[in-house]
């Protein structure tokens, strides 16, 4: 493994890997435990609510399937953005970055609609255990999406200003790592919370 010389950073590093990317993977590892604890709690409290509404009363599978599809497509936009930035095609880089953020916003919008509807149907955080675990789990995920949208829009603005180019491909790659991780968390939530009732 003598690729240190080709490493994208100017600095010598003992593993020949980009430090920021390494830190970010460690962060994602740490996030596994965060979402792991949240999902575990959801599972151990499943079916222990003493009053309704219960999951099958209000979870809207068609609606959430569309949200899931939306988030999956945003991941596709994200890799396309990365590929465009890497080959120096900033025109498409901008387009894909913006579409990723837009799909993220759509997802958030969906979540707002969903939460409002649940509240109207009588499910809040203080209604029952399903409410507690559902809102905190999906809310934490939503907060991650919101941070991701902010981050993507920042990159997009930098690109509009002409300050984002192939030299910053690593930044885009790391943003992508975050975004895809948020997506895989949703893949699990969709299965564990929505489909396995």
């Amino acid at each position, binding site marked *: 493994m003598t690729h240190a010389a080709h490493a994208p950073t100017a600095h010598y590093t*003992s593993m020949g890997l980009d430090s920021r990317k390494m*830190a970010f993977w460690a962060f994602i590892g740490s996030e596994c435990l965060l979402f792991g*604890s949240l999902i575990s709690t959801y599972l151990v409290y499943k079916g222990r*609510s003493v009053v309704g509404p219960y999951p099958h009363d209000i979870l809207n599978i068609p609606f959430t399937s569309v949200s899931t599809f939306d988030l999956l497509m945003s991941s596709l936009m994200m890799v396309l953005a990365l590929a465009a930035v890497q080959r120096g095609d900033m025109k498409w880089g901008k387009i894909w970055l913006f579409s990723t953020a837009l799909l993220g916003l759509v997802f958030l919008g969906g979540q707002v609609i969903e939460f409002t509807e649940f509240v109207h149907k009588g499910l809040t955080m*203080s209604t029952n255990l399903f409410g507690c675990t559902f809102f905190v789990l999906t809310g934490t995920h939503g907060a991650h999406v919101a941070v991701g949208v902010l981050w993507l829009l920042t990159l997009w603005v930098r690109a509009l200003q002409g300050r984002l180019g192939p030299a910053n491909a690593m930044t885009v790659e790391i943003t992508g790592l975050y975004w895809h991780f948020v997506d895989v968390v949703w893949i699990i939530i969709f299965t564990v919370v929505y489909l396995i009732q």
Partner: protein
Amino acid sequence: MKSWLTTTDHKRIGLLYFWTAFVFFLLGGIEALVIRLQLAQPSGHVVSAETYNQLFTMHGTTMVFLALMPLSASFFNYIVPLQIGARDVAFPRLNAFSYWVFLLGGLFLNASWFVGPLFKAGMLNVAPDGGWFGYANLTERQFSPGPNIDFWLLGLQILGISSLAAGFNFIVTILNLRAPGLKLMRLPVFTWMTLVTQFLIITAFPVITVGLVFLMFDRFFGAHFYVHGAGATPLLWQHLFWLFGHPEVYILILPAMGIVSEVLPTFARKPLFGYTVVVYSGILIGFMGWGVWSHHMFAVGLGPIADSVFAATTMLIAVPTGVKIFNWIATLWGGDIRGTTALHFAVGFIAMFIIGGLSGVSHASPPADLQQTDTYYVVAHIHYVLFGGTIMGLFAGIYYWWPKMTGRLLSEPLGKWHFWLQFIGMNVAFFPMHFIGLLGMPRRIYTYSPDLGVSDLNLVSTVGAFLIAVSLLVFIANLWRTRSRGETASNDPWGGATLEWSIPSPPPVYNFSVIPTITSRLPRWRTELHAPMQDPPATPPGPIHVPGGSWWPMVAAFGLPLMALAPLTHTLWLAFVGAGVLIVGIYGWAFEPFEV
């Protein structure tokens, strides 16, 4: 002044960590002295039951999160980059951020002592009072209506962010910033143990964060995560807390084990016995530390299967621990021993840690634990491992590295006084607690009846606590004296084998005038195969780039306590202000020109 506020130099941040943590350590010590005064005799009247609850809660929380962890962090900061031949950590500004968050989180927690009047209560009335492990559902609003627990759960969330940020930073630093030739199996053991500790931190802290977030939602937003009536169980908190809590005790002990593994070889003039085994046991302890948490919950009645499994894993984890102890003893065996203060503390560590480990194994067995749990016997155990272990180890590190960090040697005669007073003091203070516990005195009770037959033992224990206090005064006198009259240190006052001793004391900003190339595990010693390395030249051959300071880490750090004030004071706009400050800090940080 400005240069300290904006510093990103790992050495300065290490010193900031040291002094801040040391002050918190003294504060936690004073709390302990009041506790011991109250318990010196039966039916004591020094403090009320309410104050007593706050004292033991803040004592435990302070010592764990504000004293021992950050004292270890002070050495991570100061020593690890030097041991790996680096000019700084991987992310200097993130490092500054960790420090400021730690400081502000510590102040936030301790502010609770004074701000009672703001909550229509007296001073000394709203400090956390639910124990360092804050068991639900005692911590629910129904049973703890005041802001006490709020300070605790918000403060710990802030502190967690500091530890997490430092965790990522040091993992990358150790893996990616090693000098050429410094392979992983050539790393000094202290650096190795730091690495394992950081992995424990980044995996364990998210779990307690989730537990605390649940508690926060229960207390502020009417959720029911730990409310029995809603179908939930307070046991969930216990699981989440101890899932974090047991790795946490290894987070507290592994750095001290690393320090001892540096000090012993230096003063026995012998390489560490079984380096590879010591490193692998450290890694193994880190892994196994995740599989034992329910030994804190034997009294819950988890059922025979769970009890047996966790008893077995707990007994197993003592094996790698014991392996290390034998390696340390074998390192001393036949060595050319110099009885410095640092070595005294290191040997004291081994002896005390053995006692603590043995009492630990004695409650690894559920039937035995049922007699011991929630009694002073457990208090004896935790103090033998944390005081006899971690603190002794940290003091070994202080005496060993102080000359490197400040350029002056601490006085050896005063150091010996400090050691013996502390060693005797801790045994007088904590050994009787084994009996006090087995005789039936529960922990966390503000007083006891003379009929229990533990009055004399308690008095002895209090005397021991004050002996420890005296020993710390000696230490402070030593620090004070050393400032002006301490002997100045050469590059290498002890004849150490590792890289930090190859450069001046204290090191120049850039640490190494030339980054050394490493060919052996003991670069500065002559071994059968290797001549000692050549120390870097006193003056650098060319200009060296040193990163400048930055205000942004501190700005960003201020956002967190501001956000935490929002629920505490029921003021929504503060949450937005806090988030705004955080975001401004992060953007300023991301876009300022800063080259590492």
